[in-house]
């Protein structure tokens, strides 16, 4: 993977410390050379072109950039890319197969869990982390698990329904 840096006259690109990292994303093994200050969200979006992970607030509030690192939900704008060396990342692109939507994606479709769609990838990843560890959550547990993700359209009602729909489908 090639990363292009700004050419500052006084600062040759060779002086920029770059580290080589190995990681897995949605099952694919990758090697990348990253500047330590590169954020995980930028590695995913710009480096790997996986733009399903959204950048919302960029200040650790909104959760739109939520991805899973080793199965745990993290805000990818608040983690350095260099920190995923040796780890496994999952993004929203890894959810559907070529022929089938993930039950969470289906649930958001069935229960109208999105309007503008900006928060949706983060909501789905946070919900996936929940359902992976708790396949039969109560409504309260769903609300609790999604409380780090902001949605400005739906009022959350249908998002919660979508996750409960998916939980039921996954159990059956």
């Amino acid at each position, binding site marked *: 993977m090639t990363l292009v840096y700004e050419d500052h006259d006084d600062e040759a690109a060779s002086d920029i410390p770059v580290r080589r990292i190995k990681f897995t994303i949605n099952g694919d093994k990758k090697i990348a050379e990253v500047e330590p*200050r590169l954020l995980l969200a930028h590695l995913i979006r710009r480096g790997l072109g996986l733009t399903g992970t959204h950048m919302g607030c960029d200040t*650790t*509030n909104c*959760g739109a950039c939520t991805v899973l690192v080793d199965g745990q939900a993290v805000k990818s704008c*608040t983690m*350095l890319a*260099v920190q995923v060396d040796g780890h496994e990342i999952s993004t929203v692109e890894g959810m559907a197969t070529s022929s089938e939507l993930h039950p969470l994606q289906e649930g958001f479709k069935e229960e109208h869990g999105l309007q503008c769609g900006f928060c949706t990838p983060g909501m789905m990843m946070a919900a996936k982390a929940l359902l992976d560890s708790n396949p039969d959550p109560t409504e309260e547990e769903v609300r*609790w698990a999604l409380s*780090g993700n902001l949605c400005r359209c739906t009022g959350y009602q249908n998002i919660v329904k979508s996750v409960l729909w998916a939980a039921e489908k996954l159990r059956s």
Partner: protein
Amino acid sequence: MYPSRFRYEAPRSLDEAIGLLHDGGDYAKVLAGGQSLVPLMKLRFASPELIVDINNVPGLSYHRTEADGSLRIGALCRHADLERSDLLKTTQPTMAAAAPVIADPIVRNRGTLVGSLCHADPQGDWASVVLALGGSVVARGPRGARTILLADLVTGPFQNILDPDEIAVEAVIPAARGVRSGGYLKLERRVGDFATVGVAVAVETSGENVTRAGIALTGVGGSTIGATAAADALVGRPLTPDSIGQAAELAAEAARPRTDHRGSAEYKRHMVRTFVLRLLSRGDLAAERAA
């Protein structure tokens, strides 16, 4: 937003980490959970020249009770670990109450208690909890280890007394001298917001009498406030409506709130009083006293 450039090291042992800090520039920072540090770096409020990421150092994720009865929380123990902890639920009511209201669930997966203490944000919830419990932090550096009371660790907003080459390796909550009770109440506008008002209460009772008490306040002053006069009013006698009311008044007096977008100073002071009353008057406290 990008942080400014820094050198990054990810040592695999504490000694190596301390060595890196010791040899590093004037401005090195330890990275644990990063949930406060990375945002500060992105906003360029902090521009460290060296980041020593301790996430690859093994053996720091623990929280456990030692033979002496103290609770030890390692530098990589995440908020989420504490939120799920049965040990806390059964032995540390104040901590168990605070763990689920730290930041939001996703931040809790990464952030650490020890990091939060060192970050010394006057709005930090854990600082009040640990202060109320009389806790401390163990720091390790090239000259060995030292234990620092939380009250001494924090020297000002976002400032602590750690030397540049010291790492806070664990937090220590001393053993209870009686039956522990208490809690943490946090008023927040929404999940993940800083506390409008937070109150930590930690009480130990032996027989009828309170043997130790700690009350600390979040978000109602330029620093975490230890309401010592309020806590002292509880010690040496049973919890009664009288002593509880007195503690609530003294805690409200100790608060130094400012009017801002989260509420008026008067409102915040009122909530301090209300939270102390609620925490000390709760049924579970009464039940534990009866037991």
